[in-house]
């Protein structure tokens, strides 16, 4: 690490000239501000004793408390290492003495020594993936087994209704061997709902407080108010956590878990370095797949490192040449097309995406009511159509049930997708799309009718629907819904 970062040390002091994306050359002083790592590596680089916090001076049996301790400080850490090294009688003696100060004695010359404006203890970044999902949420899921048998939890998970974007665990959780970050996220989505009814209310509050924390911590923008929510969620957890330690539940003896402790530092860190998506390891984990796993597969598994690096170099060259080719081939006209296209796709994202042709056309109303299991459909259809009649012609409510509809068949769709009215950002990935199904069952599919949220106000607006543009009027009719004689 020292060798890798060596060129940056002078650059930080004296500055280097860097060409920006806008073509201007600026003097830049790169410094170590932020270090993204998982917990073992955090301990290693900050020279902290394992099971203590790399950021503050709390002892390992105190880190379960609500508030952080006094901040560690790079100069003090170095000072202690130096001092103990001078006075120690042997290596094991040196390590022992360091551990008394909650410092691991594994490293004698940390790489960050001598870097300008660097405080390594402040630079280690919180990490949604490893700390919250694979740490805190993992514990929560593990503790579920104290409340109900694995079998029962599995049964509940299997019975959940389907929903767009929510993974359905067909076999439950107990059969998953190694749980990936993505799976853990999918588990967090349904965790709370599945344990309700089996768990004391205090535990529900704890779980909810932690999940609140996990979700709020991932907001793509923060202000004083949202950070306050974050603190409140943490307060709520600490106010209720004692129930987790009760003997009867047999969950845990203590909550001095470094990953739980890390939550107390989030607010401070978000204030200093911005929202958590800036330093989440998720992105780098993805690189791990592209750069290491794929490359490994491309090699013949013998003497693999040169093969893997060669493979990566070639991939990069191909990618760069691709970019060159596409930009070279593109004429100005096409560039303009691109712009309009971009606007089109954006509009599309905000609206509905539904197939041009109906999934089943000309379905008789009676058969729709049976297949879609909606016996009251035609009743509401009559009310709806009646609302378009002019005042004098509208049919009184009492007679409506005997009114004849002016058509017998309808074109029916089984699914559609739509853009969520975005909050200014794509919070979940996947382009901010949502999808719904209203699909009758047949030999190949089981019936599926999704549940939806509808805004109240929109129903009031439905009277102001856009009118139909007429292509050719065959014969104008004013009365299309008539009472049976």
């Amino acid at each position: 690490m020292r060798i890798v970062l060596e060129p940056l040390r002078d650059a930080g002091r004296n500055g280097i000239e860097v060409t920006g994306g806008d073509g201007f050359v600026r003097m830049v002083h790169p410094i170590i501000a932020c270090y993204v790592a998982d917990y073992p590596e955090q301990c290693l680089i900050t020279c902290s004793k394992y099971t203590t916090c790399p950021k503050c001076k709390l002892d390992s049996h105190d880190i379960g408390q609500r508030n952080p301790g006094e901040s560690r400080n790079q100069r003090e850490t170095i000072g202690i290492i130096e001092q103990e090294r001078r006075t120690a009688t042997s290596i094991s003696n040196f390590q022992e003495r360091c551990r008394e100060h909650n410092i691991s004695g594994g490293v004698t010359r940390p790489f960050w020594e001598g870097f300008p404006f660097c405080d390594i203890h402040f630079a280690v970044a919180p990490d949604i993936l490893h700390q919250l999902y694979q740490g805190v949420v993992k514990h929560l899921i593990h503790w579920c087994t104290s409340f109900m048998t694995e079998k029962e939890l599995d049964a509940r998970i299997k019975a959940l209704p389907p929903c767009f974007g929510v993974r359905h665990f067909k076999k439950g959780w107990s059969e998953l061997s190694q749980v990936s970050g993505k799976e853990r996220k999918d588990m967090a989505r349904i965790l709370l709902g599945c344990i309700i009814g089996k768990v004391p209310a205090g535990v529900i509050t704890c779980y909810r407080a932690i999940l609140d924390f996990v979700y709020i911590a991932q907001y793509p923008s923060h202000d004083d108010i949202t950070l306050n929510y974050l603190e409140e969620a943490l307060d709520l957890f600490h106010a209720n956590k004692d129930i987790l330690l009760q003997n009867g539940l047999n969950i845990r003896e203590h909550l001095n878990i470094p990953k739980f402790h890390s939550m107390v530092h989030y607010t401070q860190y978000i204030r200093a370095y911005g929202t958590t998506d800036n330093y989440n390891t998720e992105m780098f984990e993805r690189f791990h797949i592209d750069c290491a796993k794929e490359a490994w597969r491309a090699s013949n598994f013998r003497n693999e490192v040169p093969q893997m690096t060669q493979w990566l170099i070639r991939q990069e060259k191909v990618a760069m040449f691709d970019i060159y080719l596409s930009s070279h081939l593109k004429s100005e006209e096409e560039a303009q097309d691109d712009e309009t296209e971009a606007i089109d796709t954006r509009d599309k994202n905000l609206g509905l995406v539904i197939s041009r042709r109906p999934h089943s056309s000309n379905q008789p109303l009676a058969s729709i009511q049976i297949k879609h299991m909606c016996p009251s459909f035609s009743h509401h259809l009559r009310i709806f159509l009646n609302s378009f009649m002019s005042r004098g012609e509208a049919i009184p409510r009492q007679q409506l049930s005997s009114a004849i509809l002016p058509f017998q068949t309808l074109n029916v769709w089984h699914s559609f997708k739509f853009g969520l009215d975005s909050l200014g950002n794509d919070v979940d990935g996947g382009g901010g799309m949502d999808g719904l199904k209203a699909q009758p069952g047949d030999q190949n599919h089981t019936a599926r009718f999704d549940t939806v949220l509808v805004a109240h106000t929109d129903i009031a607006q439905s009277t102001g629907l856009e009118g139909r543009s007429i292509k050719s009027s065959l014969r104008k009719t004013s009365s299309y819904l008539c009472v049976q004689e």
Partner: protein
Amino acid sequence: MCTGMKVGRLRVIFTLPEILRNFHTAPTTWPSEHLAYVEWYKISDRPGTHHNMYIVSKPHPLPNNILPGDIIPLRAIRQSCQLIPLTGPNATWSRSWTTSNVLDECSSFLLNNWTSKYAYQTIW
């Protein structure tokens, strides 16, 4: 937030025909866009104290066995949502429930606001 929202089950997605019986053209006042038929569920006024989720229940049928529902424009649908079956304390979920029939069999649910970050930010 949820005061402005209704929960329902999407039953039919359709459009009104352009040509009626007797080859009449449909009236110009009819909407040409896609419509949805939704059966309404009842939603509690405020979320539960401990879990902070809204409780959703199936309504009783109106006289004539009519279920509460509405025809709405498809674009009025704001988002999908997941309902989680809700049973009393310590009750076991019925064994007959499967992912495809639980919405029909069970009558009381929790509105799951943890399904996505979007849902978390919009349902509260």
